């Protein structure tokens, strides 16, 4: 086999290992999927009636009241799912790094990057499965996207790309953390960014400084792209911004993660 074939084979092996670990520890995945579902119910049924008054008909997907707000908030909840999932990724990576098996891997003639690739791909599978469940739940509550097949595929692609970027970021955070506790705290800012964007209310309703921040942080263009693809709102330049942010975050996080992994000095 060639080096590339070995790298692929090792990455597949490691991905299988990590998927199995996630399946063996389902409480974590359930918690990560449960959070966005709780938020969805909370926002639609507790705040939704009131919040829907501020939305125009276009933003509400042509619906009024709670149903209208559900159409607006669903893309935000999907990104919240991504943010919650990658918080779990940072914990899983940090936990794995404290175990002795990583040292075993490092003394074996395997592709070095495969340890990280395995974590990233497994986390991506986990995140996309979570998105599937949350989407299904939103549809069950009355979310009615106007998207056709192509738009659905495009939306899945945008979510997957952004999830890929954030999973790499979480992996880097998990590697940088000195303890599992730290790893569970540092990705919290990612979750906060979901709220400081256009996920739950339009950025235009925020005070000036916050609005500026909301417009130029990565979650907003991704949210707007997703919303446009699913419910037909205007996307504009948000599509390009979403892809650029995703690629940029993925690339920088990948470099950082690899560097952290290579230079990790186990005690």
């Amino acid at each position, binding site marked *: *086999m060639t080096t590339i074939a*070995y790298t692929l*084979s*090792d990455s597949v*092996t490691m991905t299988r*290992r990590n998927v*199995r*670990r996630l399946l*063996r*520890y389902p409480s974590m995945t359930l918690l990560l999927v449960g959070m966005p579902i709780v938020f969805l119910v909370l926002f639609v049924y507790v705040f939704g009636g009131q919040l829907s008054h501020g939305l125009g008909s276009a933003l509400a997907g042509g619906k009024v009241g709670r149903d209208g707000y559900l159409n607006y908030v669903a893309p935000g909840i999907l990104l919240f799912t991504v943010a919650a999932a990658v918080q779990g990724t940072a914990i899983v990576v940090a936990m794995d790094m404290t*175990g*002795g*098996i990583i*040292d*075993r*891997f*490092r*003394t*074996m*003639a*395997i592709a070095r990057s495969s340890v990280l690739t395995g974590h990233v791909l497994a986390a991506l599978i986990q995140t996309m499965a979570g998105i599937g469940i949350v989407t299904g739940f939103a549809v069950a509550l009355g979310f009615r996207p106007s998207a056709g097949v192509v738009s659905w595929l495009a939306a899945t692609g945008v979510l997957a790309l952004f999830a890929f970027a954030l999973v790499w970021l979480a992996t880097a955070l998990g590697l940088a953390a000195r303890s599992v506790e730290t790893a569970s705290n540092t990705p919290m800012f990612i979750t906060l960014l979901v709220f400081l964007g256009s996920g739950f209310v339009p950025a235009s309703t925020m005070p000036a400084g916050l609005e500026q921040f909301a417009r130029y942080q990565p979650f907003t263009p991704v949210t707007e792209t997703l919303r446009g693809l699913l419910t037909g709102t205007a996307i504009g330049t948000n599509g390009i911004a979403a892809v650029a942010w995703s690629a940029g975050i993925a690339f920088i996080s990948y470099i950082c993660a690899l560097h952290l992994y290579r230079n990790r*000095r*186990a005690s």
Partner: protein
Amino acid sequence: MNTTSQPAIVALGVRKAFDETTVLDGVDLTVAEGSIFALLGPNGAGKTTMVRILSTLITPDVGQVCVAGHDVVREPDAVRGVIGVTGQFSALDDLCTGLENMRLMADLNHLGRNTRQSRVSELLDRFGLTDVAHKQVTTYSGGLRRRLDLAMTLVGEPRVIFLDEPTTGLDPGSRRMMWDSIRRLVAVGVTILLTTQYLDEADELADRIAVLDRGRIVAEGTPDELKRRVPGGHVRLQVPTARSLQVAVALLHGASYDEEKLEVQVPTDGTVPALRHLLSVLDEADIQVDQLTVHTPDLDDVFFAVTGHPTEEAIALP
């Protein structure tokens, strides 16, 4: 490839410091292919650091290290291809079963489907793990974990194996079993470097022993060579009365005694003529002896002789 005359492990002038603390201070080692070499020393002597350098986990600050003819710094992947490491802390995937752990190793060693199946089941069998193969590793006892750990290391058929304190924390039964496994490995030509803080373990297993103390090799040789260097042998006599104790001490050259325990210690080389002479002296003076024990020098004595402090004292150091 030259496999007989070339040593399996060569280390020259290895130094390693973490921050300000020097952990290894110029270590030289040569380990012959197909032998067991024990690195003996108390906690904090630098044993684990040496193993981490030999197994490419960390690089030395100064010095040259070759394993199976490959430089650990310049050709780490070539070294990784021929070594197996079982560390002090178990390197298992706790969320998986024993069988899954073994299969993971088989996949990472790029074994074909048929080889994978036969080697995994052969090793599980050899280490008595077949019955628990489908149980999650978290349910394993310490001895089972250590056996699985070693079995996983062997999946890739390494030519050089590093065992960092392979029996620390094991019960006597598991320890015996581990020793047997280690001996059987050498029988098939594998080279083993193990670290231990148990003197009897090094004595039991190793062809050669190096005593590591505070980052330096303070003695090296076969177990017998090391013991010969130490004048620690003596005969211990248990006498019935204080009177016979006094007579014995007066008669026997260099004797020391303990009045309370009614014990006399006489230095001896442990040979039969020396013992015969001792007994005849006691007979002539009509000294009754309740009990006689011959104490040959063990590695505890060696450690004391070469480091100037007993093992316990060294362990107490930070």
